[in-house]
């Protein structure tokens, strides 16, 4: 936020601070009651539980003193979840049935994925409001395909070529065609090499179409910082792996008796989990800063100054407490993480907030939101 320089009279600039007022204890009660209802109804209550959770988190997020609000209709969310569930069931079943059926299903899911992402983005934003104004996702479905194509192609290529190679090598004495081998290798290497670019393309699409009234966001960062961040994340991963896994590995190689092997194995698994949490928290913090410090519209600027170390410390403490309490600490962890992430944000308006206005809203289907959730796609604003 500090580096943001604005060429407008100081009087017109309005800094909005972000505060999170949710409480861990209250969210715990909401969580456990809704979990019970979800289980008792064999999952049918899930959309209501989810809408309640989103409403609680939105209403707890104050931007310039005014809370965000969530308007999603659980009934349309239920329809979406049922559709997404049917898709997922078809996909996982066809994978079990046979290889060709699995590949066809993979292609179908890969082909539908950008559309689902698009619908999910639209649903989530169109149902979030601030000061009565609905946010909007202004991206097109074609844009989603263009943004996600580099993500989908190498993965599909790698899986299909891999299956082909496995089939070929099953014939004894058959030598692998060098071109095919090269194709597998290249498609495999292209996945990590393209990952930062893919993330950049997607985030440019996502942040480039966040809209509120006539304001439409833009991601000003190029792919360079994303590659730099990827390198840093890889370094942090290597370093923490070295530091945290060395102890248990030495212990495992030492004169530990057969009886202790289970203990050593548990220790190794825990150390690896801690490594994943540290790297994950580091990545989340740095990515949030990178994204929001470079997102702005004509009259709205965002900033984020989330410090990685405190965030990592919080994430590791949460992990330990969640394990020790057998998961009961989870709502407290979720609120604490949300508080730290949200309160690191800052927003600056070059226009009095009262003068913002919305375009007429359209009603949106929840299918994409539901699919996004089931397929592990987390879209948080």
């Amino acid at each position: 936020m500090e580096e943001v320089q604005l060429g407008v009279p100081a009087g017109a600039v309005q800094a909005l601070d972000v505060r999170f007022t949710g409480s861990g204890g209250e969210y715990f009660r909401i969580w456990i009651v809704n979990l019970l209802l979800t289980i008792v109804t064999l999952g049918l209550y899930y959309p209501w539980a989810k809408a309640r959770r989103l409403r609680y988190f939105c209403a707890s997020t104050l931007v310039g003193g005014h809370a965000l609000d969530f308007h999603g209709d659980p009934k349309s969310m239920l329809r979406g979840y049922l559709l997404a569930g049917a898709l997922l069931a078809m996909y996982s079943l066809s994978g079990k049935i046979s290889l060709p059926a699995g590949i066809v299903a993979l292609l179908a899911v890969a082909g539908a994925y950008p559309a689902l992402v698009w619908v999910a983005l639209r649903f989530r934003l169109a149902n979030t409001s601030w000061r009565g104004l609905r946010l909007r996702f202004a991206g097109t479905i074609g844009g989603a395909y263009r943004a996600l194509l580099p993500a989908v192609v190498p993965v599909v290529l790698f899986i299909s070529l891999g299956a082909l190679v496995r089939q070929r090598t099953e014939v004894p004495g058959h030598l692998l065609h060098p071109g095919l081998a090269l194709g597998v290798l290249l498609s495999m290497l292209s996945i990590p090499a393209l990952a930062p670019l893919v993330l950049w393309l997607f985030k440019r699409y996502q942040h480039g179409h966040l809209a509120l009234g006539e304001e439409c966001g833009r991601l000003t960062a190029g792919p360079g910082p994303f590659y730099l961040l990827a390198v840093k994340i890889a370094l942090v991963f290597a370093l923490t792996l070295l530091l945290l896994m060395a102890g248990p590995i030495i212990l495992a190689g030492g004169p530990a008796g057969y009886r202790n092997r289970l203990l050593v194995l548990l220790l190794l698994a825990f150390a690896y989990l801690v490594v994943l949490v540290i790297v994950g928290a580091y990545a989340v913090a740095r990515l949030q800063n990178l994204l929001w410090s470079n997102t702005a519209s004509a009259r709205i600027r965002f900033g984020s100054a989330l410090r990685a170390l405190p965030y990592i410390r919080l994430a590791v403490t949460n992990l330990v407490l969640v394990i020790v309490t057998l998961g009961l600490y989870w709502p407290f962890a979720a609120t604490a993480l949300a508080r730290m992430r949200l309160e690191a944000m800052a927003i600056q308006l070059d226009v009095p907030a009262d003068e913002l206005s919305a375009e007429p809203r359209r009603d949106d289907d929840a299918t994409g939101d539901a699919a996004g959730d089931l397929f592990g796609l987390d879209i948080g604003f």
Partner: protein
Amino acid sequence: MLDAEYFDGHSARARRVSLHIAGHTLHIVGDGLDLAVPVADVDWPERRSSGVRMAHLAGGGSLHCQDGAAWDAWARAEGLRDPVVVRMQQSWRLAVAAGVALLVVTVGLYRWGVPVASRAIVALTPPEVDAAVGGVVLDALRDHGIIEPTAIEYEQQEEIRVAFARAFARTRPSGDQALVALRFYDSELGANALALPGGTIIVTDDMVRLLADREDVLLGVLAHEAGHVRGRHGMKSLVQTAFIGTLAGVAIGDYSVMLATVPAALGQMAYSRQFERDADGESIRLLRANGISPAVMVTLFERLQAARGRPPAGGLRAPLGIAFASHPADEERLRRFEQAAGVRARAR
């Protein structure tokens, strides 16, 4: 009367209004506004311990009140009632009770609910579906080269089929046939037998060779597999996995998708142990009906272990098939065959 902010949904401008309810109508008055809205059309906010209250109006407008306590007092005075869910959410006592209920319901579902539900679903599923699934699995096993044409002579195959049909008929006083088809294949699975949904039982060449001199033991193995077919265990485990996977995904998928797969895996292990017990029961029944001591099955476990040199790891698992030798050769199963033999010896 309550002071609140009104937003019309088109402009970010807040308008100071006061609210009151008369009969079934909410009146929003102030700042040039005088709206009357049916109380039933308002999406009322849930009570919470602190923070803003926001009500959604039908036309896209909304009411905000920064003073949550004032809103709650007003709502109570106007006769608006908290839904049961909100009362539970706002009471530690009820929330803890919900936690205990959650534990009880989860254990109940896991122990009885899911098995009963999957039994019902499988019972409602026409047998043709079993056959179709079994056919698909068989094709997949063949396509992946896991099973290949057998080297067992046709005469020997027929001998085994006839012996099994005869032995099976003795367990059924009415004389109905075992609706299974024995098929022999050479396989990398080693000495093994698999029951596919629909009634196909795959017997590997290695299994036939392992028990070439012990038809009695082979009958026990086939009866075990026939037990899986009769109980439609393959289909049941398919439905159960889907059930637990869905429930776990819904319950804890928000926290970690990876973690959500654990209950399904654990549940499947527990349920398949029950399937094995049932199938072993069928095996014991057939052996007894044919005057064979169930203790002969000890030979199988001994020979399997000798053939492998170590206890089976259970790593090789055919999709959907329930392979006999892939089961963890637990002491428990061995003891059961021995005990069954002991009971019989005493009874005699």
